[in-house]
């Protein structure tokens, strides 16, 4: 049994939802799914801790891509959570028997096919199940190039992991496909929403959030072991956990470029180029940080904070201009 709509994606949620929508006959790229759901963001949430480190996100919270895209496409997704693993597995088997392709939210840690060093207790991973053979589920995990298999016990454990963002066995199916063409109007609305998020008057969100994170970094004690872990953690959230590079900035640039071909949106191709350059700036920040983590350069929080402040300024100008261009 194969799943012809498995495509390699940068990010699990945008990958899963675009592959699922394709399966239902609406050809859509990962970048389009990401952009139309207005998923680009920045959030620094010091009061939510993952392994003792603050939550730093370069995108909107889990499930917002699926919900957001559903709204834009007028498609209908059905979400179900479960009290106990047995009920969750029974329902999954039932849906598969009916021929559905089913989306799941899982922990990364308990998925045996993940590389050992990438297995952390992160609970908002997404994947598609497209079949079952014997005791194995057939899985299209878009962060991998090929489809994989996972035994029932491990998958159940991954679905019912507890902790921050616990999936509670969440599964989702697409009930009806909705519209199949993407209009300039829908794209414009989504982009303006992202501009609003990035320019939000809140100190922990968008360009202001980046600035607040910069101030936090500037206060780190260069001699403390914890400081190195803190800055390393920022880079993991930005690059390693599947963002397509530069904390989703490259992915969003791909979206802007795709939208530029819609009628009346030609001006976006210049914005796409600009965002690619800003993304290169984020990559330079990652490189500078990694050199300090590795000890090739001395840990200098002030330099890193300045790089972050500069990125915040660049993104502020960028999203202001983008907003003006669309109004």
């Amino acid at each position, binding site marked *: 049994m194969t799943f012809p709509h498995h495509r390699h994606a*940068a990010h699990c949620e945008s990958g899963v939802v675009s592959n699922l929508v394709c399966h239902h006959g609406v050809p859509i790229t990962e970048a389009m799914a990401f952009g139309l759901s207005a998923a680009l963001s920045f959030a620094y949430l010091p009061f939510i801790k993952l392994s003792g480190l603050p939550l730093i996100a370069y995108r909107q919270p889990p499930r917002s891509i699926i919900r957001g895209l559903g709204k834009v496409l007028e498609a209908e997704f059905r979400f179900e959570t479960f009290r106990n693993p047995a009920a969750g597995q029974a329902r999954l088997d039932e849906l598969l028997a009916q021929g559905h392709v089913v989306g799941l939210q899982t922990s990364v840690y308990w998925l045996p096919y993940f*590389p050992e060093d*990438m297995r*952390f207790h992160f609970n908002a991973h997404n994947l598609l199940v497209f079949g079952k053979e014997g005791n194995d589920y057939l899985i299209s995990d878009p962060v991998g190039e090929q489809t994989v298999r996972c035994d029932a016990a491990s998958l159940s454990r991954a679905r019912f992991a*507890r902790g921050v963002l616990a999936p509670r066995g969440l599964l989702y199916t697409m009930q009806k496909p909705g519209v199949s063409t993407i209009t300039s109007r829908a794209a414009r609305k989504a982009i303006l929403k992202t501009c609003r998020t990035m320019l939000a008057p809140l100190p922990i969100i968008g360009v202001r959030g980046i600035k607040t994170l910069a101030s936090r970094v500037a206060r780190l004690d260069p001699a403390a072991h914890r400081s190195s872990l803190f800055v390393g953690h920022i*880079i993991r959230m930005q*690059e390693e956990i599947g963002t397509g590079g530069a904390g989703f900035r490259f992915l969003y640039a791909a979206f802007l470029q795709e939208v530029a071909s819609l009628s009346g949106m030609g001006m976006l191709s210049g914005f796409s180029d600009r965002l690619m350059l800003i*993304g290169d700036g984020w990559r330079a920040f990652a490189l500078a*940080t990694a050199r300090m983590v590795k000890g090739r350069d001395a840990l200098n929080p002030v330099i890193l904070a300045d790089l972050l402040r500069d990125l915040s300024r660049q993104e502020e100008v960028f999203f202001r201009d983008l907003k003006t261009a669309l109004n």
Partner: protein
Amino acid sequence: MDLQNVPQDGNKTLGGYRKAVYARDAGGHIVVAASNGWEVEEIVTSQAVEEMRSLAETARQNAINGLSSTLEYWMYARRMDLLLLAQSTGIWRWRIRRHFRPEIFARLSPGMLKRYAEALGLAVQQLQRLP
């Protein structure tokens, strides 16, 4: 990022996987490219993995020396911390901290041991031993 600059550093941490990144081809189109890793990512991931390994190793030594129970070792070996273990078992943190004391851990009821073992993906006998 241009296509020819997509890092192919062969990260050990990716275990042979390739990840999708977005880069610009010669014609200026942004396309998906498969990367077998960027050294920057390997550095920060290894740092996080190493940190957890060292916490587990310290806990292992403490368990050998009778300063801590095997529960603390297994918590770190499963890449958890006190908060996550508390959330995964539904046991309060102060109680778990108490169970880190070897003499108290030795007296835990079978039901309590089972709760810990299940949350950590272990058999009860494993939980009571070091590997």
